[in-house]
């Protein structure tokens, strides 16, 4: 329940900031033409995701790298409340790896004799811990905005994974009209090329893909924010791409199994239907039209 409260209040917050953005955009004149006038989120460039389309499948290496980004960056403010550590086995991890991964997290473990909150290392059947004990704490820590829960984010966020990626990489950039290329809004901008445009402050952060073109989320990613164990270069754009893949997987973890099942069943049914058509024609061949 808190998840949606969170999201709605952050949207309300974003709307409020929309007004501020308009003032800033017009007053200071650093918004590109057409950007400040329309406060509807810009159309996110279409990306070529591995999981896209009816026959796509998740690039599990990217999902695992994306988990590293989530754990290292996003998890400090965002929760994945519906996900248990054991669910992460679907990323292609063994149960030993899951146990090791869970141990890196602390989860609340009731109260001690003095009534203080105790913590322990997480176990595979624990849910991923929420970053804040409640919405009030989240709001207090984030200047009034509550970071949304990410369990189903690519499903419930209008624009889906394309917009998540665009939001993560689009700080301070005018809306990009390029499509199909991965380097649309570029990680370089996020890395701090335009610090003036990115500047936060009370009004939030300029981002054409946010509602009202302002978001309370500071630019989360920068080059080298995490170290990928598979040797992939951790540019901000690569991190955004991988974490979006991870979030898309978390939003719909069984999509691959479903598509695989679909291919088998559809082929079987086509074969069966062909046989039945032949049989039907034979049976009905005796009937005078």
């Amino acid at each position, binding site marked *: 329940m808190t998840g949606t409260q969170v999201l709605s209040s952050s949207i309300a917050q974003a709307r409020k900031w929309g007004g501020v953005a308009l003032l800033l955009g017009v007053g200071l004149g650093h918004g590109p033409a057409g950007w400040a006038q329309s406060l509807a989120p810009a159309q996110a460039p279409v990306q070529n995701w591995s999981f896209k389309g*009816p026959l796509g499948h998740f690039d599990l290496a990217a999902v695992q790298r994306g988990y590293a980004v989530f754990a290292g960056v996003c998890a400090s403010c965002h929760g994945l409340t519906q996900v248990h550590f054991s669910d992460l086995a679907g990323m292609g991890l063994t149960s030993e790896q899951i146990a090791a991964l869970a141990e890196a997290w602390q989860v609340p473990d009731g109260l001690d004799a003095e009534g203080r909150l105790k913590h322990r290392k997480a176990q595979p059947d624990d849910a991923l811990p929420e970053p804040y004990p409640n919405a009030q704490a989240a709001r207090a820590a984030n200047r009034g905005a509550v970071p949304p829960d990410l369990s*189903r984010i690519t499903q419930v966020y209008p624009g889906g994974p394309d917009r998540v990626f665009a939001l993560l990489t689009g700080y301070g950039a005018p809306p990009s009209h390029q499509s199909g290329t991965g380097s649309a809004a570029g990680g370089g901008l996020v890395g701090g090329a335009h610090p003036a445009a990115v500047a936060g402050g009370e009004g939030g952060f300029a981002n054409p893909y946010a509602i009202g073109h302002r978001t309370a989320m500071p630019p989360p990613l920068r080059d080298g924010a995490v170290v990928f164990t598979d040797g992939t270069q951790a540019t901000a754009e690569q991190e955004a791409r991988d974490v979006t893949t991870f979030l898309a997987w978390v939003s719909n973890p069984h999509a691959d199994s479903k598509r695989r099942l*679909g291919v088998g069943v559809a082929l079987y*049914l086509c074969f069966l239907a062909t046989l*039945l058509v032949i049989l*039907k024609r034979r*049976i009905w061949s005796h*009937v005078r039209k």
Partner: protein
Amino acid sequence: MEGSPSCKDQTGRRHEAAGVVAFVKDYMGFLLPADLNLLWTIGAMLVAVLGLMLLSGLTLALSYTPDASLAFGSVEALERRMPSGWLLRSLHMTGASFFMAALYLHVFRGLYYGSYRAPRRGLWLIGSALLVMVMVTAFAGYVLPWGQMSYWGADVAGKAVGAVPVIGSLLERVFLGGDAPGTPTLHRMFVLHFTLAFSIVGAVVLHVAVLHARGSSSPSGPQGETPARMLPFYPYFTIKDTLGVVVMALLFTMVMCFWPGLITEPANYRPANPLHTPADIEPEWYFLPFYGMLQAVPSKFGGLLVSAGAVVVLFCVPWLDRGPGWTGPKSGMRWLAWLAMSVLVASFVLAGLAGSHHVQGVWLLVGRLATVGYYAYFLGFLPFYAKLANWGERA
């Protein structure tokens, strides 16, 4: 299956077996008009989907918790980590859409070919009752996951019930179990969903039994129902129905596995939040035509009457249709029936499109025209087409 001769109580066994065998033989030998087209296989598809819904629904219910604070999480848990939970839930969700789609086709087929005429009025009435039961079951089922659309759907439905004069507020409280949707609402919907599902099975058995007593209609009218133009159910129609079911299963698989976005509402993956009203509250696609009609009328109660009336009018169809039908061989009315049916289907679809938009401006006009078009078929065309056709022949 048949009684084995080695049994002690041979005579009794044989008698019982003979009963079953006789029933199966009778069922398989049931004569049907030879000219039944593909639209007549939809009944078999409906039975297949109903079976699927019962099986998947029963297994889903094993891990569902009807409590406002736990329902969403329990559905997430069953989808994320119950073995094959994702499959069961996809089957159930896709099944609901396919069931409603097939049911609408079944009803339109019955309307077009006049399947409601005597001696099948009872069959039509049971079918109409089944439609209502299925719609209520589908609605109750949609509330259960307790996402945003579940919650606000229940809220809108509660308010619609509350618009009934005099007893409205009482009905609303009985329906919601309080002032707003909550745990009592979930308990009600869960029980309703469950009990109605099995009542539907009973009504389907009755529907089929009456069909067997009265015989099937034919696309070419009473002429097609003469014994000379009939064929036994087995093997002619068993193979046809099986083929129909397999083709439907193929479509079902494609939608479920490759294009699930066609039948899922993303907003319902957000947990219910009583403090945040979504910008667009809209029901599942299969209720959109009625939702469009509900909004096309400025008065709340009027809208309720018009949209509920759109289903109730189906019960009156056998008595509204005064004509001899247009399915005869030399009937000059065929084009008229075809035109009227096209208007009806177009109105139904347009009302649905209006329901999926904010009903204002152009869409308000479309919604109103569609409502008029829908009712015109039942109240303007069915009672008078015979006279119209006579007049046409004389002229």
